[in-house]
């Protein structure tokens, strides 16, 4: 196997190296890649879509169809993890650990034993509980709102600066994952239960696809945002800009929730009880 791997890698590298001398030089502005289609985007995207960030314009409008499927791929990954890992069977109830806050004594409640979950003096803890995570908790609480705000900014400001629905969505998702890491998984699940998370993901992709279908119903081609002009009461160029914003929001919703769901399934091996 070792030899086979080496031979394959070397052969493959040889093929790539064989072609490299015929490449245009690095950064050559006269290379075909920079002169055939891409100048159109650079010169016309502002006039066509009123979006200064050309990458966003191309991503969500000229090649918006690719991006729709990109979002669908992410959604499919969420579904796939659920399909593969989720424990649907009767949940194997092991013993649960409760900590008595005033004294710090930990109780192990075996199956069948009863203790109210919401007791003021007891808190449920993970089997691998770290006692003094006060700093992480507080720092987390302090930083989280800013991360989330930044994520929203990235989504909304994707027209003018780097960013957009995908990046913003990942950052928002990462913020929620960070919350789960700095506190525990149960509190995150309390804010964003599994079912709600996946429904929101589906809704996010549906916003994208729905925008496309709406354009189609209004007489344009699929995802031709200019067709929304009448509905939004703006000229076709601005309609494209707004259309891009709509789909970016859909992408952000889908990506946020799928990232969190992926974390739920991977971190708990599908049991959805204790996080990392």
């Amino acid at each position, binding site marked *: 196997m070792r030899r086979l791997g080496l031979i394959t890698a070397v052969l493959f590298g040889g093929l790539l190296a064989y072609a490299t001398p015929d490449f245009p030089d690095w950064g050559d502005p006269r290379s075909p890649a920079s002169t055939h289609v891409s100048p159109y985007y650079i010169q016309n995207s502002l006039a066509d879509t009123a979006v200064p*960030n050309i*990458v*966003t314009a191309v*991503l969500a409008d000229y090649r918006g169809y690719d991006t729709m499927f990109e979002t669908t791929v992410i959604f499919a990954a969420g579904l796939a993890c659920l399909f593969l890992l989720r424990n649907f069977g009767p949940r194997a109830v092991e013993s649960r650990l409760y900590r008595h806050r005033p004294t710090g004594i930990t109780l192990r409640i075996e199956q069948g034993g009863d203790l109210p979950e919401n007791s003021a003096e007891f808190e449920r803890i993970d089997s691998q509980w770290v006692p003094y995570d006060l700093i992480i908790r507080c720092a987390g609480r302090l930083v989280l709102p800013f991360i989330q705000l930044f994520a929203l900014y990235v989504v909304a400001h994707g027209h003018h600066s*780097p*960013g*957009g629905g*995908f*990046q913003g969505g*990942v*950052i928002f*998702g*990462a913020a929620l*994952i960070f919350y789960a*890491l700095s506190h525990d998984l149960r509190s995150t699940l309390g804010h964003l239960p599994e079912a709600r998370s996946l429904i929101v993901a589906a809704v996010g992709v549906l916003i994208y696809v729905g925008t496309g279908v709406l354009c189609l119903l209004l007489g344009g081609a699929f995802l031709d945002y200019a067709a929304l002009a009448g509905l939004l009461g703006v000229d076709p160029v601005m309609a494209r800009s707004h259309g891009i914003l709509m789909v970016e929001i859909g992408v952000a919703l889908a990506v946020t929730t799928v*990232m969190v769901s*992926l*974390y739920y399934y*991977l*971190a*708990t*091996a599908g049991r959805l009880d204790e996080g*990392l």
Partner: protein
Amino acid sequence: MIWQLEIIILVLVVVCAVGALAVRDLLGAAILFGAYSFLMCLLWAIMGAVDVAFTEASVGAGVSTVFFVAAVFRTSRRTRD
């Protein structure tokens, strides 16, 4: 665009890639992979691909690494090569 910096990053990228594959501890490999992603993202930022770099910083260096750590945590850290 300081070319010395770029060369250093290019070398570090390769070092991290080899390191991530060579280290005999999966948690270490996951962290090195995160470093690899982050260096890659720096490289792209230098080359002007800000959107790609942004995405890679949040996905590759952020969420992917967490997924790796989660998977290693739930399976095993041990590896024989």
